[in-house]
Structure formats: C-alpha cells, structure tokens
C-alpha cells in the first residue's frame, strides 16, 4: 500500500501545530521522523494512525481517502516509547492479544505468536509475566505484538528511548530487518541523529510541526537543504559562524577575514552563516584547504570511542572531534582546523547556498527509499 499525506495540517485551539505536511511512503520503506521534543513527531504519528483527524489536507491509502477513518478501521500498529503490556497476561497472551479480536483459528494465532517470538528472541519467555522481564524484553514484547498484527503501517514512537544504550545498540540493528520482511511501511520517530544514521532508510527532519527536509538518510545528513535540517541532524550540535561577504572578502563578526571560504565564491554579497559538524573540525593540522581559528579549550566530552573538545573561538564555542579518548586541559590554547570542503553555507533566510547537489524540496520527494 502507498500512504500519502497531502498538505496535512492540524490546528488545536487556533494554534497551528502541524503545518502543510506532504509525504508519500511506499511499502517496505523505512521512514525516520527526526526532530527534538515537541517538533511534532508524535502528533504526526497520531494523524497517520487515525487517532486524530487533521484539520486540513487529506490522507490517502492506495489512492483512497482515509482522512476521517478511525484507527480501528485502518491497518496500523503502533509501539510507544513507554512499553505498554498487559500486566496480568503472560508474554504469549500479550503477543497474541491483537489476534484475539480478529477471529483467527487457534493454530493460526499460535503460528504467528511463535514466529514473532522467534524473531524477537522471546521463545523462552512466553510463559513469564511482564513484570518478570527486563525493560528490553518488555519492549521486545510490545514490538512482537505490533509484528503479529501484520499491519500495513507500523509506527514506532521512540521505541528505544527508555532502554539502556547497549540494548538500544542491539535492537537498532534488529528492528528494520525484522519489519522489512513484512513489506510494511515503517515510520520511526527519534530525537537522535545517530539513531537515524544507524537505521538508514529515509529521514524526514522536523521543526515546530513542519517538514524541513526529506530524502535518503545519508543524503539529508550530508546535504542539508536549510539550516534547520542541518541543526536537527547534528549531534554534537552544529558549529556555526556568522560572516559577511563583500566582493572577494569574507569576514567574521569581529571583522577578521577568512581564508578558504570558497563555499561562498559564487554567492552575492550579504550576510551568511557558515556551518560544519564536529568531524570537520580537528585540533591537529590535517591536509590542505583548512580554515584555522585560534581558541581556548572549554571542556572535553567523551563518548566512549571519541572525544569532543569544546573550544571557545571568540565568536562562539565550537565542538571538535578527536578520535579515541583524550582529555584536553581547560584554558589550553589550541588551533581549530576546519576542512573547508565540508563547510556548509546558509543565507539570511537559512537556505543552503553553494550546495554541490541541490537537495530537493520536501513537497517533491518521495522519501520511501526501498530497503
């Protein structure tokens, strides 16, 4: 089934919370809704599920208008951040519960439950009660329940947010694989850029109820169409520098000229924002085409495999990536070397300038990249 949101909007008490969303999702596709808390991820999922009706626009399923159709008449499964299981039913009955109302034979129900339990590695836990399971096992139970329904549209709302990060690592690997075999449209909401990258598929970046960009995940990451998409898709936060271009000269907010600002060579005079991610900034000279900025170390954050050094460069604090685990002394004087080829430029309205490949506008794309 093809699932289309056509100029969908939602007003609540006169406030526009979802604004003109256009998406076309294909069977077997994995679509990630990426945005901070309150960006509209859950609201959009509720509209997709039919739990709420939009106040403008239409929702189409295989060309049929389902805009007003309630959730129980749609083929939808949803998994929430806070795992929901029936505490008085064992794991087997929890997984079987959506099938009890459909009128399948006992052996059909049994076959589906055992298949889902096998895929989610719950076979040995079927007789247990939810309270006897770890958080990861409980969430796997909730996911298994979504799987047995064989719904055409599966909505996962930050399903791993409440789990330990090691469990998250494992389940992130498994989830897309598990659902891709069913041919369902998968929509996955997350606040974490790294999660979107690990999952792959297509990413739809959101800000304040609007789509800021949609496309294949690695494309949106590498080629953000606007500064909102770039910011949402950066962890650690995007490094930014306000500059002004006059003729051949590009100067920062303190009037210092920048060398290597080639990204603006074709752009007209005016105010711009240069931006780059932590991995484009190093504390050691590495090759040519580097923009250099003297600064002072503020703090080092250590992720376990990498270190992120926050450096005060006078016009703001930037985050620089250092491979491995290395603590830098605060106040230490350093030079930030920025790879000029990976500097993005945005105009005063936040639109990308000087992009190598122009990123398509949200309304024109079909983000349902096939897995």
């Amino acid at each position: 089934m093809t699932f289309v949101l056509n100029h969908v909007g939602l007003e609540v008490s006169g406030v526009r919370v979802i604004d003109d969303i256009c998406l076309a999702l294909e069977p077997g596709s994995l679509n990630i809704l990426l945005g901070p808390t309150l960006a509209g991820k859950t609201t959009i999922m509720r509209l997709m599920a039919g739990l709420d009706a939009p106040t403008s626009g239409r929702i189409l399923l295989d060309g049929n208008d389902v805009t007003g159709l309630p959730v129980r008449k749609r083929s939808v499964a949803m998994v929430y951040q806070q795992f929901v299981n029936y505490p008085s039913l064992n794991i087997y009955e929890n997984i079987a519960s959506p099938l009890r109302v459909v009128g399948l034979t006992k052996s059909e129900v049994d076959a589906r439950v055992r298949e889902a339990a096998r895929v989610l590695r719950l076979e040995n836990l079927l007789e247990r009660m939810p309270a006897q399971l770890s958080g990861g096992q409980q969430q796997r139970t909730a996911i298994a329940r979504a799987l047995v329904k064989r719904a055409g549209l599966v909505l996962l709302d930050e399903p791993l947010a409440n789990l330990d990060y090691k469990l998250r690592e494992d389940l992130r690997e498994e989830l897309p694989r598990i659902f891709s075999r069913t041919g369902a449209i998968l929509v996955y909401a997350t606040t974490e850029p790294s999660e979107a990258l690990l999952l792959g598929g297509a990413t739809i970046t959101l800000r304040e109820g609007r789509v800021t960009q949609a496309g294949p995940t690695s494309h949106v990451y590498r080629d953000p169409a606007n500064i909102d998409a770039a910011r949402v898709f950066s962890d650690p936060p995007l490094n930014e520098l306000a500059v002004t271009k006059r003729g051949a000269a590009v100067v920062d907010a303190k009037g210092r000229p920048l060398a290597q600002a080639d990204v603006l060579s074709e752009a007209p005079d005016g105010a711009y924002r240069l931006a780059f991610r932590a991995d484009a900034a190093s504390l050691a000279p590495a090759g040519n085409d580097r923009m250099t900025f003297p600064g002072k170390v503020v703090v080092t954050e250590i992720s376990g495999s990498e270190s992120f050094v926050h450096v005060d460069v006078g016009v703001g604090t930037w985050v620089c990536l250092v491979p491995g685990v290395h603590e830098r002394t605060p106040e230490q004087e350093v030079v930030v070397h920025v790879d000029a080829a990976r500097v993005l430029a945005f105009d005063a309205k936040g639109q990308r300038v000087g992009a190598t490949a122009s990123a398509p506008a949200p309304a024109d794309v079909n983000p349902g990249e096939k897995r």
Partner: protein
Amino acid sequence: MTRITLDRIAHSYGDNPRTEADYQLKPLQHVWEQGSAYALLGPSGCGKTTLLNVISGLVIPSEGRLLFDDVDVTHLPTEQRNIAQVFQFPVIYDTMTVAENLAFPLKNRRLPRLVIDKRVAEIAKMLDLTADLGRPARGLSADAKQKISLGRGLVRSDVSAVLFDEPLTVIDPALKWELRSKLKAVHRAFDLLMIYVTHDQIEALTFADKVVVMNDGRAVQIGAPAELFYRPEHTFVGYFIGSPGMNFMPAQVDAKRARVGSHEFDLGADYTDLPKNRSIQVGVRPEFVTLTSGPGLPVQVRRIADLGRKRLAYVNLGDHPIIASVPHEMESVGDTANISIDPANTHVYVADVRQQGAPV
C-alpha cells in the same frame, strides 16, 4: 574536607545470604577523595543505585563499614550525613522563585544573607539561570526545573558529598550536551566530592575523573576514562564502554601470536605463561581494526554502516563476527576485504580478565 571510605561494603536484599550470588552488591573496598568526581556506571540491576543508597543512608549495608573521614556513618540516617542529592526528576518548590529555590538549603542552615546572595548568584551564573532568578519556578520547562535541582544540590559548599542519581534522564538530547559540560565545569570550579550514577557512558566518561564500571553487583574496573577505553581490565568493560564495544574472539595464544580459526596475527606483548584450561579471548576495539586495501587478514563483508562521521564494516573473520573501521579514503568496499589489527591495542583475556603480557 571529606574522604569517603567503603570498607568491605556488601549488601544483600535477602535475609540470609550464603553464596556470593545472594549479594546484590559484592564486597567493595575503596576510598573516594574530596575534590574528585566519580561515576557509577552499569546496566540496570548492576548494583549502582544500591551503592549510591548505601552512601546516602537509604540502605544500611548488610556487611562492612562506611566512613566519612574517620567517622563511621554506616548506621546514621540520611539527614545526619551532610550530603546533597539530585534525583532523576526535578524536586523544586513551585511557589518559590528560582532564586528562593536555590537559596533554600542555605536559609535552612541560617547562613547570613550576604553569603547566601553571593553563593546563589555564583551558582546561577554557572548554570545560566541568572536571567531567571526572579521568576517563579512554576511554569518553567522540565529542563529548567532540573537545572534548578542541580543548582540546589550544588549550592552548599560544606557538604561531605553531592550525589547525583541519573540527573539528565528528563533532559532533551540537544540540551544534554550543554548540561554535561556545565556539570563538568561546576566540578572543576568547586572543591566537592561528587558521585554520579548513570547507565549512560557519555555522562560517566565526561563527568568523572574515575569511573566505577559495575556489572552484576561487582565493580569490575575503577579507572580514568582513557584507561577504560585503551585497557579494559575485564571483557565487560570492553563491551560496555564504546559504541560499538570491543570485539572479542575466542583464540589460541602462543607467545606473541594469536590464532583465531585458521588466521594468525601479531600481539603487542608476549603471553608465554597463560593459565591453562581456561577460555582465552583476544579483544580489540573497532577503532583498532581497519579495512585495508593492502595486505591483511581476509574477511567477508556483511554490511557497511554509514554513521555520518565514520563508517563501520560488519565483517566475518572465519566464523567470527567483527566490527571494523572503514578509512575515510576508502571509497567502495566489496564483498571481501582485508583487515589490519593494531597489535598495541589488542589485549588477551583469560576467563574474562585481561592478562599482562611481557614487553616485546
């Protein structure tokens, strides 16, 4: 000046613990020094919260003594221990202003007005709350409220210790970056003993001078972040620290060579006298296994994951799955490839414990 000594502390929630398995917290001997920050890091159920509760007085340990300097506080109630605590969820007074909330612990101690004002201003500045000082706490976002809770925990300079129990749980990922660095700056600015419980490695490694990695009730390694990364003393530390964690392969080790299946490679030290009849594993982090177009060990490539700032290759060396790094300059990767393993960062584990090889 406070030093906290854990003197053979152990705890069992059951009544008659007999075997080691009956203890949710296995015997622990350690000294925590003033001015240092410690993180208790581990998965759910590892005992980290039990240990924190022993220190705060919520749990009286079934064995051992807890000393603050030389005073035995094992059986003292929480309020007599002179500690500050910050919890997972904000605990603030909605009817008070931000400034009144921050000043509350000091007012209770009847400190002079001038001292209170100065300290509140200092804390507010560190946490970027200065502009909000006059506002009522009611109506602030969860993030802002938790910042106030953090500030209240830090406002007293005479506490024996400040205890944090997963304080960034309710904070949005983007703001976590900011608050983590703030907490670290606070730690540097104030000479306090801080103990921080988390299951998040970034929080633990960023915040702490020393991280206590816990698993199954046991402190498996206590070390600086770099030690946990470069020299995990236990396979659990290798697995738990790092995303993804360390690769482990069952191996045969002969002096300076390791053999995995039918493949052999160099080790960085000489392991001639390994204990016999125990399981031997070689451990190496994905950062130190690199795909190479030159000579190396042949692998089958299962999958390449593009994580934006790096690419990881999921490969098989014989039957053994390994995660390797893909160098930036390597543009395409086929179904087979070679890997090179950095001997200096390859470790040997016997029954999960790292072995010290002889230098070569």
